[in-house]
């Protein structure tokens, strides 16, 4: 009698602790789920229609954008060297930086578009942080245009070159930004290091 009682108690304790673990798991996934909701605001104009004017930008803004550019370039250089680990950690930093930029330092009329760009950059950064190199390159290529749109609005702190290789993605082509005119292809890395040409130079006025 005593023995069967202790077996029952043991089983109950095991059952309850299992349930508690399951509940804790559920909570954490619920929390993650909440991040999937984005608020939206209308986007009436395209960024490329506005020419940037670096002189309008305040220093504080410039600093946050500088960090973003720095991290973008770290990812680029890592991909040039087929270094997925460095790219991943820079992707994580890129995601963190893009959500920490204070939108209030920008002109009110530009805030909604900058916010949308930063959300997308964050998304790309998160994927670069957790993917294998081919997928990292896909997301890196995906954010080139968003970065250029951002620079057109906020201005830049350095001269950047938009470079383009027509062979990427089965001949669909792909772009990236570099701080040097010399072509070192991050979309192919060592497989085709010199594919590409400079399409546009983004410099300060």
């Amino acid at each position, binding site marked *: 009698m005593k023995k069967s009682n202790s077996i029952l108690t043991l*089983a109950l304790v095991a059952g309850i602790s299992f*349930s508690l673990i399951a509940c804790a798991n559920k909570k954490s996934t619920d929390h993650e789920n909440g991040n999937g909701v984005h608020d939206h*605001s209308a986007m009436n104009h395209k960024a490329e229609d506005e020419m940037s004017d670096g002189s309008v930008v305040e220093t504080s803004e410039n600093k946050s954008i500088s960090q973003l550019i720095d991290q973008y370039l770290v990812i680029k250089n890592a991909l040039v060297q087929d270094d997925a680990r460095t790219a991943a950690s820079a992707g994580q930093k890129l995601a963190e930086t893009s959500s920490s930029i204070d939108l209030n330092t920008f002109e009110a009329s530009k805030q909604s578009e900058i916010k*949308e760009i930063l*959300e*997308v950059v964050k998304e790309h950064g998160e994927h670069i942080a957790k993917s294998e190199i081919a997928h990292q390159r896909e997301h890196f290529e995906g954010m080139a245009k968003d970065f250029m749109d951002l620079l057109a609005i906020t201005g830049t702190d350095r001269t950047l070159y938009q470079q383009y290789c027509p062979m990427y993605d089965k001949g669909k082509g792909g772009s990236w930004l570099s701080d040097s005119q010399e072509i070192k292809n991050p979309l192919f890395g060592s497989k085709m290091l010199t594919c590409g040409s400079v399409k546009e130079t983004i410099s300060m006025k």
Partner: protein
Amino acid sequence: MKKWLKLSLWIVLIVLVGIQFVPVQRNEIEPVTNADFIEHYESPIVIGNIIRASCYDCHSNQTKYPWYSNVQPIGFLLQNHISEGNSELNLSEFGLLSNRMKRTKLKSILSQIDNDKMPMPSYLFLHSEAKLDSLKKTLLVSYFDSILVDIDR
């Protein structure tokens, strides 16, 4: 030795029965809204049916749960998968995204389908109806492409 075996079998049994009573939050909450991808773009019926069959179990708020989702711990594992899929892409709320985010998501959708990464093989194992044969794949890719072009305009 025999005693211990008997004891552990009892424990396993009771734990398995016990966890059947743990509530799992299900992902079939709200009615379809205007933000739903298929509603938002007024997708043709054929396309809508493919998207519903192949994507909606994990990428919308309208999961169709199989009977074994009521059996734990399978149900917990399924719910984890679904929550993960939903946080990457929730087609029930697609209409709420900014145009820029829509473009980004569509490009990822296209690349995943084009490279046969989605629907996931582990999902197809038990959901043959979700499989994209080459015709369905071509239809979906050109459809998502056309939406992407429209957003770019």
